[in-house]
């Protein structure tokens, strides 16, 4: 939309073609870009292209030639409705009702959506509770949340001190507002530095295609605040894990103005949009395996929040039956051993070989692999003395013939319709033979290993934590 705004301001008339259910999002972004009355024609999600185009071709031309209305000629200023520090004064009962209001969102939702929450009950952010929460940081309440280091932002490079623009409305926020969100989520004051680190990520919500967001703490902070990096760390039960993770959505709703069906268009949503925060078990890392903090350029004694803003192909896991993994590693028995041809041979075996064939069946891209400590140790004993060694091995496993690579969906976008140059060979995509081997993973270091969990041998896998080139590591220490 900024591009269309640039054209209109330069005197070049435009017309936009998009789907009807995107109308609210178009109007919101058009307003934010200063051209609230942009002309817009609805295409169909269903009709075949030629038939569809026939139905609105006249409207396209009208949009370019019909003279502007008085409204479309207006110069003005849009002023936000309210930016008061206090949003409610009254009884506690009244506050409860206020914060649990809903508003009806028409198609494509057709249901009430919470105005201030993630749909679950919240703790009302009274002045006293927020003041108590603010004891968890040395940052001032009225300080605008800014980037704590230079990095690549969603719209290009950002510098330390630039204000964080919360997605999708590009609003800003004070530290106090983040603290209010933390109160609502049920956090304690000691959780606030982690919440502020999440806030620094802009609480990106993606658009139509995402499986949600995911968070992981690495460093001493996890133990300081009693996070669970053991059994059930991705699930419910631990207050720090659950409430810190929950703030992502509360902040997205309030600080970013994200509303399902209006500007948050993930068609199905997902349980990951909850969101979940776990912690790395750094004590369980094999010797020589870096922590997530170190992989992000921090020291082992520094604490970071890994923000995975766009889980883009779901989560898979629990591929091993109860006891199946142990039989495989201890004595080379069971289905895993049969598949890998190690029947009767005790381990340590490389269990990743069992999973790799399914990694790239549905979708290309590197993976985040969560594994329990014992499984990490087996990989180490097998011979992977560093995480990098595992990543490089996985990258090599990801090579598939071009004829199969072409059958993914997203690759049409990534290769710009196969119009460009294949990066490894330097040749045009269309010159390459069907048996040319292409890496389904974009880069060895787009993989990520997270060690944590309990004693039962389970691994979960999800998409790479690198998305659109964004650095996913945010310092928690900077927000203490």
């Amino acid at each position, binding site marked *: 939309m900024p*591009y*269309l705004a640039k*054209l*209109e*301001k330069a005197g*070049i*008339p435009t*017309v*936009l*073609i*998009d789907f009807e259910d995107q109308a609210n999002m178009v109007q919101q972004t058009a307003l*934010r870009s*200063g*051209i609230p009355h942009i*002309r817009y024609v609805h*295409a169909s999600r269903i009709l*075949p*292209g030629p038939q*569809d*185009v*026939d139905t609105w*071709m006249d409207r396209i*031309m009208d949009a*370019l030639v*019909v*003279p*502007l209305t008085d409204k479309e000629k207006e*110069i*003005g*200023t*849009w002023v*936000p409705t309210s930016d*008061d520090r*206090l*949003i409610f*004064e009254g*009884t506690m009962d009244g*506050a409860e009702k206020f*914060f649990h209001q809903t508003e009806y969102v028409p198609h494509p939702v057709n249901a009430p959506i919470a105005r*201030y929450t993630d749909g679950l009950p919240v703790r009302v*952010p*009274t*002045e006293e509770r*927020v003041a108590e929460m603010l004891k968890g940081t040395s940052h001032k309440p009225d300080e605008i949340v800014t980037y704590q280091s230079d990095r690549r932002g969603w719209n290009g490079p950002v510098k330390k001190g630039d204000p964080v623009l*919360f997605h999708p409305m*590009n*609003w*800003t*926020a004070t530290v*106090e*507002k983040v*603290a*209010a969100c933390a109160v609502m989520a049920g956090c304690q004051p000691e959780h606030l530095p982690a919440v502020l680190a999440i806030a620094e990520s802009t609480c990106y919500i993606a658009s139509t295609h995402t499986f949600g967001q995911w968070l992981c703490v690495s460093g001493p902070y996890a133990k300081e605040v009693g996070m669970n990096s053991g059994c059930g760390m991705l699930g419910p039960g631990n207050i720090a894990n659950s409430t810190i993770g929950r703030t992502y959505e*509360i902040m997205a709703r309030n*600080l970013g*103005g994200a509303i399902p069906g209006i500007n948050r268009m993930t068609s199905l949503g997902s349980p990951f949009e909850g969101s979940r925060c776990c912690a790395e078990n750094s004590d369980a890392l094999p010797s020589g395996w870096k922590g997530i903090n170190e992989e992000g350029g921090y020291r082992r004694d520094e604490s970071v929040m890994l923000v995975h803003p766009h889980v883009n192909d779901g989560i898979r896991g629990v591929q091993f039956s109860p006891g199946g993994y142990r039989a495989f590693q201890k004595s080379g028995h069971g289905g895993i051993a049969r598949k890998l041809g190690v029947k009767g041979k005790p381990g340590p075996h490389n269990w990743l070989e069992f999973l790799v064939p399914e990694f790239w069946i549905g979708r290309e891209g590197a993976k985040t692999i969560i594994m329990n400590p014992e499984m990490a140790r087996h990989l180490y004993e097998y011979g992977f003395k560093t995480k990098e060694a595992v990543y490089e091995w996985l990258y090599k496993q990801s090579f598939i013939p071009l004829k199969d690579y072409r059958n993914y969906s997203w690759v049409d*976008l990534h*290769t*710009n*319709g196969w119009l460009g140059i294949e990066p490894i060979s330097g040749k045009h995509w269309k010159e390459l033979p069907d048996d040319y081997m292409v890496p389904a993973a974009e880069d060895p270091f787009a993989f990520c290993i997270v060690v944590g969990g309990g004693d039962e041998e389970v691994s979960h896998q999800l998409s790479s934590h690198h998305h659109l080139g964004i650095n996913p590591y945010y310092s928690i220490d900077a927000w203490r």
Partner: protein
Amino acid sequence: MAEKVRCISPVGIADVVKTFPLAPRLDKIDGKNICISICGEPDITIALEKKLKNDYTNVNWLLKKTYSLYPIGLTDEEMKTTDAVIQGVLW
């Protein structure tokens, strides 16, 4: 009497936005330089390009096409000579 509470707003701070008029529309289509700016949805945009070129033969069509999510912008030179832009389906 029930105790009174005051609650801090968790809502983000929206900037004041200066709004602008749309660009004046064209007096006619024929003879104009119009850009068809395409992102995605080839089922629609292939048909769109074909129909525009078939039905409006007196227009100088400039095609900017990408499969990515973001349009290919007009260059500074093209901004000087382009009379209108049709953008679809992503933006």
